[in-house]
């Protein structure tokens, strides 16, 4: 309420649509803005009511966005480290953009830095919103070295198992689960994906609950999601795999699976043989150099009692043929001279001994919890399994997530109401790819590789990985692969360890590349220049000390950080570039995130220029020119890549990019103008009309999910983005890894129990005693790591319940045993790495006795962060830098901790 006689500030109120930038959910928002002539100041952010993604709602972070724009700690001008100072000391002087460009150009020339000696850490903003700019930038300088930070740190390990099964790999690697229409949902692991919070998921979760959805949550601690569950199963950390295997066993044993779906649309009936201890489908493309597309596979036809061929890449095993592919092969079947079974037989064999009693013992829960879960999932329709994010990661995570995905497939939860529904982007991409594949245009392996790299989901991911990043043959990168490829070779030679097969845009090997340990084709392969855009490796990549060592290594001639706030990473920069916040940015036309409806949207700025900040997109052009020297950045190559990725007209792209690289037009505006002209044509309107419609509505819903499922249901009408086109119980990609990287149970093509050790000698049945505990971490709804750290309003919200946010959760019984009271100071030691952190204890019944839990959103150290500095636990100092076997993601919880009172 205004004071009655107070004069309101000048101007009128307008609304500008935007896309929230605080987490990967990327909600549609509208920004209430006071506009006075050219002056704009945002007043309040609301969810966009036109949005079917977040349904007009946003979370606390979204509501607090304006407080980040006007954060008193903001970096408002380019900064150059004072000569004679050391990285990490925070001694900077204010500079202009011209100075910065000159500084970088000089350093590049002085040290003769080659394109492959440059690496970009493409963090949250680059990964989620400016992907096109980042790809264009790398192409323009000819470097293959992208570290897509949220991918590896955040989602790769978690989603690889599900991706391999259903072929997804889009917005945060996930599909938006249709919770409105589901009756039962099993949530495995982390809270982050639901009420931790992802609004597009949380609105569906709440609606589903109101519609009567039953929810089962498996999580060692009482999370926000668990508090809403009908059944909370606090299984021991690290035991998701046995839990899921036992559920899977009961579903198969009781025949609670959708038989027709499995026969027709999945690889379950594929005939498989034992290839030196690992299952392999007859017909599997065994060439390690080629992508695993195959000519044909084989099934056993129950009608004719014979083995019949099925197409190599299709959505349907049966089609118009009069066959009935068997899920279980007859006993003693042989094919091509070898004993043959179906993939489904192998799946059953993998789980047949996983009784509820066996799993219950490992999970330390009652067996009836497992039985009830299986029965609910198996007998009530529709049902689905929900995979969390930022879950504890152990070396079995990929197989565990594969098990979860397989359960979802077995109970029929794929692209149906109440199940996992594919995004329109995946459907469109698959339509394009399938057409090209069918027409025979892709017979040439080079064409296939290129088309696959541009395809959606898993296909695109693998194509980019094996074709562009790993091959060392991609012409744009002058014959150099991503440094991680050189690292895997180094590892193989030095340590006898295999490569890490599924590691696109990974940081694996970055430290070794800086240290000068890597070679390629006999020549040294060293990283000398790192550009870190909106990510904080010191904390989020784990192993704080090793990253400090890397960034202070004199081999690294130039460290440039682009940030909004003085992050821990920024302290180690030579040059800091000030980024714009999302409320200050335009964007190109963007798809509507993980929305299962087809929609487009765009950002419109609602803030007048602050300081001398530039958006990340503009910075790409400046850096590109500075790195390329006299000749300027190669915008033609950039245009080529972008036109391939988007399908945009090459001429239009190169014309616009020429303007961008010559400083005549910001890159975001170039991308926006191209997108407007391309998309408006498809919609039968002019660019101007489309822009106006987007400005008015923020988001345009083009097609509803029901219509999309009817037209392009996957796998019902179209192949899914796997190499067989089917939903894969047997993964053709993991079988390919067996050929390319050697056989390994972590990437077993069907399912393999991985009995890992928490620490040496402590297997899955380990029971810590005394002051030793299992370790779990998660996420608080009000924060998303660096993106929201230091926001004064969010800071106030988390301070209100700071005990649970900054301290280690401990069960009262354990606390009593250790003589600890609420708030007592403790030292926490990692029993595997020896790392130690200081914290305090928060006593709660919402945690297992053998486990301690901590929030992962805090622990920033840079003293320039007024609100966030020194609060909570820096996980980078407790979790070691240790690469997981399949995706190079950290094995973030595979250890125990010891707690001591201090």
């Amino acid at each position, binding site marked *: 309420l205004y004071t009655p006689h107070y004069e309101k500030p000048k101007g009128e109120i307008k609304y500008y649509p935007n896309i929230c930038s605080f987490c990967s959910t990327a909600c549609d928002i509208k920004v209430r803005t006071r506009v006075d002539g050219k002056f704009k100041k945002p007043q309040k952010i609301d969810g966009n009511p036109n949005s079917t993604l977040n349904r007009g709602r946003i*979370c606390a972070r979204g509501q607090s966005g304006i407080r980040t724009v006007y954060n008193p700690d903001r970096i408002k001008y380019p900064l150059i480290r004072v000569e004679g100072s050391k990285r990490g000391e925070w001694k900077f002087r204010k500079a202009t953009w011209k100075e910065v460009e000159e500084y970088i150009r000089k350093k590049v020339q002085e040290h003769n830095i080659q394109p492959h000696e440059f690496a970009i850490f493409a963090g949250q903003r680059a990964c989620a919103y400016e992907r096109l700019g980042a790809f264009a930038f790398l192409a323009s300088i000819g470097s293959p070295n992208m570290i897509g930070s949220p991918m590896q740190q955040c989602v790769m390990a978690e989603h690889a198992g599900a991706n391999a099964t259903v072929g997804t790999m889009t917005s945060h690697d996930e599909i938006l689960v249709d919770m409105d229409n589901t009756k039962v949902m099993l949530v495995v692991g982390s809270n982050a994906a639901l009420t931790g*919070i992802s609004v597009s998921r949380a609105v569906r979760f*709440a609606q589903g609950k109101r519609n009567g959805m039953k929810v089962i949550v498996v999580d060692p601690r009482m999370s926000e999601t668990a508090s809403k569950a009908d059944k909370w199963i606090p299984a021991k950390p690290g035991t998701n795999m046995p839990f899921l295997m036992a559920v899977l066993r009961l579903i198969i044993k009781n025949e609670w699976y959708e038989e027709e779906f499995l026969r027709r649309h999945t690889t379950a009936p594929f005939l498989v043989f034992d290839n030196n201890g690992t299952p392999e489908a007859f017909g599997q493309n065994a060439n390690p150099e080629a992508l695993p597309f195959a000519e044909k596979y084989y099934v056993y036809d129950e009608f004719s009692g014979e083995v019949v061929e099925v197409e190599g890449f299709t959505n349907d095993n049966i089609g118009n043929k009069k066959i009935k592919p068997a899920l279980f092969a007859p006993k003693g079947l042989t094919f091509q001279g070898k004993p043959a079974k179906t993939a489904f037989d192998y799946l059953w064999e993998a789980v047949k001994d996983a009784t509820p009693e066996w799993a219950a013992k490992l999970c330390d829960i009652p067996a009836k919890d497992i039985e009830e879960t299986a029965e609910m999932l198996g007998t009530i329709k529709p049902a689905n399994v929900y995979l969390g994010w930022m879950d504890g990661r152990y070396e079995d995570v990929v197989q565990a997530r594969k098990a979860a995905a397989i359960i979802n497939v077995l109970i029929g939860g794929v692209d149906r109401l109440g199940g996992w529904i594919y995004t329109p982007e995946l459907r469109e991409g698959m339509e394009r790819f399938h057409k090209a594949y069918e027409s025979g245009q892709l017979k040439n392996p080079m064409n296939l590789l290129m088309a696959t790299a541009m395809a959606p989901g898993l296909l695109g991911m693998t194509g980019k990985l094996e074709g562009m990043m790993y091959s060392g043959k991609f012409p744009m990168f002058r014959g150099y692969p991503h440094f991680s490829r050189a690292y895997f070779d180094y590892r193989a030679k030095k340590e006898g360890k295999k490569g890490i097969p599924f590691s696109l845009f990974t940081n694996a090997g970055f430290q070794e590349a800086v240290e000068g340990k890597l070679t390629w084709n006999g020549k040294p392969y060293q990283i000398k220049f790192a550009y870190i855009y909106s990510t904080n490796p010191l904390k989020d990549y784990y192993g704080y000390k090793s990253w400090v060592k890397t960034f202070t290594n004199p081999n690294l001639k130039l460290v440039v950080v682009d940030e909004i706030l003085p992050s821990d990473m920024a302290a180690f920069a030579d040059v800091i570039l000030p980024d714009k916040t999302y409320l200050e940015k335009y964007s190109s036309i963007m798809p509507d995130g993980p929305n299962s409806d087809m929609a487009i949207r765009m950002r419109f700025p609602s803030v007048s220029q602050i300081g001398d900040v530039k958006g990340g997109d503009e910075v790409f052009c400046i850096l590109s020119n500075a790195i390329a020297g006299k000749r300027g950045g190669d915008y033609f190559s950039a245009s080529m890549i972008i036109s391939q990725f988007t399908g945009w007209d090459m001429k239009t792209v190169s014309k616009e990019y020429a303007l961008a690289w010559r400083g005549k037009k910001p890159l975001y505006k170039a991308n926006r103008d191209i997108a407007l002209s391309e998309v408006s044509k498809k919609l039968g309107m002019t660019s101007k009309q489309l822009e106006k419609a987007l400005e008015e509505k923020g988001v345009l819903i083009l097609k509803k999910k029901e219509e999309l499922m009817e037209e392009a249901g996957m796998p019902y009408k179209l192949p899914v983005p796997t190499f067989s086109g089917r939903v894969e119980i047997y993964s053709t990609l993991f079988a390919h890894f067996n050929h390319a990287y050697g056989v390994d149970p972590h990437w077993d093509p069907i399912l393999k129990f991985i009995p890992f050790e928490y620490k040496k000698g402590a297997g899955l049945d380990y029971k810590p005693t005394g002051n030793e505990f299992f370790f779990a971490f998660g996420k608080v709804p009000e924060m998303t790591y660096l993106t929201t750290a230091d926001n004064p309003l969010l800071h106030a*919200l988390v301070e*209100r319940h700071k005990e649970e946010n900054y301290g280690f959760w401990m069960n009262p019984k354990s606390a009593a045993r250790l003589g600890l009271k609420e708030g007592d100071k403790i030292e926490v030691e990692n029993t595997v790495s020896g790392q130690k952190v200081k914290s305090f204890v928060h006593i709660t019944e919402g945690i297992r006795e053998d486990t301690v839990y901590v929030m992962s959103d805090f622990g920033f150290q840079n003293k320039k962060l007024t609100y966030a500095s020194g609060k909570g636990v820096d996980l980078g100092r407790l979790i070691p830098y240790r690469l997981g076997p399949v995706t190079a993601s950290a094995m973030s919880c595979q250890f125990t901790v010891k707690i001591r009172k201090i």
Partner: protein
Amino acid sequence: MARYGMVMDVSSCLGCRACMAACSQWNQTPFWAEDFEGKWRTRVTPLEEGKFPNVRKVFFPTICMHCENPPCHSVCPTGATYINKDGIVLIDYDLCLGCGYCIEACPYDARYEYEKEDLEKDEFYFGEDARHHQVHIDKCTFCVDRLEEGLEPSCAATCVGHARIFGDLDDPNSEVAKLVNSGKAKPLGEYMGAKPKVYYIK
């Protein structure tokens, strides 16, 4: 004329605290206050009961109950606290002495003092858009200024779990009236006789 009220569906509150952030940004409540618990117009408080593994956790949202018989109203010596035509309990900042009787009188702990330092901080964070210019007692207004524009109160408009349902209790077709008239939603502390217009589904 309306009789505005709110239903809090506690079973739908996800504990995300979007409401608190939304309210604070719109109404410029003192999120900067050193006592982080003290100065909010709305709060979500986690409550935990039971022993592991039979633990129940709920998130309990509270605001001013906009009582029909508000104790804060009867104790106000200057008449600064008033009830508008739509049944919303408001404070006239010009008449408010800041004596704090109402803070003591309110059985729902809905009021706090907007102090001098808060005015300074309000200007620090919001500049010329600062909305508080004199010391006064502060509380939820159902975002009466948003209602004038046809918008819902900030907290209800953004509630992710749709746990806050706002509307006219006199309109039998409104969601709030239906929930209240069916007996599903009940006020807190009915025995105190303040006749709150905020109802709870537990």
